[in-house]
């Protein structure tokens, strides 16, 4: 084994635009400190001022994000766009599924999400059906039946008595 294989030094982190964005956010938040914190009252000492904590933290974030942006390593470009778009679409699907819990209940929302995510992941046909149904069944059995996790009663299961009975398990 070569000595290189034992090296603990990681490749230099990239993320120039990420750190520039973080520095910008930190700068804006620092400018808002007067509005977003209130001064202490009763003269209990400067060290108790509520703004001390955010001031130190945001200063650290601003200074080191700026420096990190300046000294950032080269970014990788392989498959970045596809991965980024996929992450964004999955995030939107995730939030959509959470929103659907109040309408369709936990089990059906998870089914919608697994079908959506499995399709995006490249599963098609019978494999898509197996993956989404299998995962949904596993989640419902684990969270609803084994752990007894409570979820708000969904709109769908309030529409008919027989649906209410099914809703207890989904």
């Amino acid at each position: 084994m070569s000595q290189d294989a034992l090296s603990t030094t990681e490749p230099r982190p990239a993320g120039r635009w990420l750190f520039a964005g973080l520095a910008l956010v930190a700068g804006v938040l620092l400018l808002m400190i007067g509005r977003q914190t209130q001064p202490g009252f009763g003269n209990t000492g400067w060290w108790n001022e509520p703004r001390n904590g955010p001031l130190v933290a945001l200063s650290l974030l601003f200074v080191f994000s700026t420096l990190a942006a300046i000294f950032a390593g080269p970014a990788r470009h392989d498959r970045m766009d596809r991965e980024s778009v996929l992450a964004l679409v999955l995030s939107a699907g995730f939030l959509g599924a959470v929103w659907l819990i109040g309408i369709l209940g936990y089990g059906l929302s998870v089914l919608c999400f697994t079908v959506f995510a499995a399709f995006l992941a490249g599963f098609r046909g019978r494999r898509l059906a197996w993956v989404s149904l299998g995962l949904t069944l596993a989640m419902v059995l684990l969270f609803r039946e084994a752990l007894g996790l409570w979820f708000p009663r969904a709109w769908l299961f309030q529409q008919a008595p027989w649906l209410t009975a099914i809703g207890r398990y989904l």
Partner: protein
Amino acid sequence: MDTLLVAFDQVASLPVLVALVAGSLLGIIIGAIPGLGPGVAIAILLPFTFGLPPLIGITLLMGIYAGAWYGGAIPAILINTPGTGVSVMTTYDGYPMTQAGQPQRALSLAYASSFFGGTFSVLVLIFAAPLLAALARQIGSADLAMAAALAMVLVVTAHRGAELPAAAMLGLGLFLSTVGLEGAYGTPRYTFGTTWLLAGVPLIAIILGLFAMSQAFLLIASDGGQRAAAPEMRAGLFSGFVEVLRYPGTLLRSAGFGVGMGILPGVGEFLAQFFAYSTARSASRTPELFGKGAPEGIIASETSNNAVPAAALVPLLALGIPGEVLTAMMLAVFTVHNVDPGPSLFAEHGDFVAGLYLSLFLMNFVIVAILLVGTRWIALVTRLDDRMLGIAVLCFAMAGTYSANYRITDCVLAVGFGLLGFALRRARVPMVPIILGVVLGPILEARTRQALGTAGGDLTIFVTRPISAILLAVMLALILNSLFGRLRARR
């Protein structure tokens, strides 16, 4: 003797034993699946442990933590793919041994070494934590504030070559910890007029987003992780328990590195393995065999990384200061149950501590028993499709974030942190400082206020108290060393 009886009394209950076995089994399986890791599993399970008594919750999470390090050796040895990041060095000698037709020997050596490292570090925890806690009774708020600050500096400087991004991430974590109602006056900070931020940014959303969801996005975007099939396993996993005894020096040295690095905040398994492996090779009579199937290589790697989990609990239990991300997550379990880790823990919750020690000790026996019986079947999980794992992780994250408070805002935050984690992972930016900033921020702020309140605002309290002054000096030395190291590297 009384302590031992109390410990047995705590552990000898069905829920604790179930947590012990379930956590260990889950940890082994998670560790054996390349692409996942104990961080993801603990992040997912964290919200569900809040409803459990602390001993059961911590036992479950520690089972995952310890089990994953054992399980990570399985794909490392059988298919040359580390199950967890800390199994990388096990591939150097484990896989060549498999190629030479000795997978059982390699796995057996890995299990025996892990067992030695794991039990050794529990014994160190049993002796070191009360000593450190007794010492901690003598220390004041200024010292604890400096200890928290030192932990932060160690975490930043441990990321060699990435100190600037690590410091920025620490700042981000510290800022997140300040959001919500603050402690001195009860006034809101950075809540933007909303009510849902008054209780602060939920830790669950941060952890699940940064560690579970970001990893899931990458898994789903992968090609499915087509890996080589593991070789057929036969019986005979006991030989390593005799063979490791031929290398007592390597065992003890590696365990020592694991314990030492585990106790130090921010250092952890990677450096422990690095030092253990390098030293084992230097001390070996056959250094030329390293990387080609040397038993000492497997022993060094596995002993050192499995000695870390229990040792990492020493600063958490004794000082209330977590040294790395997984113990930081566990601090949340203590906090939810109003159990304050630190010097008073041993006096007020002695039975809990005794039970925890015993469950950690037994955990190693349970894990080895599971591995000896089930390695053949556990090895099958290495064939799981990464994309399917990613979807499963997102489903777990959905249940975890939503069921914590039943608020869609928590899920929005988790998604936000998931996307941030995704961007950070791709840019190779360390995320651990964010969690430590979130967890250590309130400790640092509260202790600093207390110290300065006692001193009437006199900042010299941090240099006039001996312990605080020493910690401050260490901190400055670390910063200067890191700064000059960086300048030297640029030249």
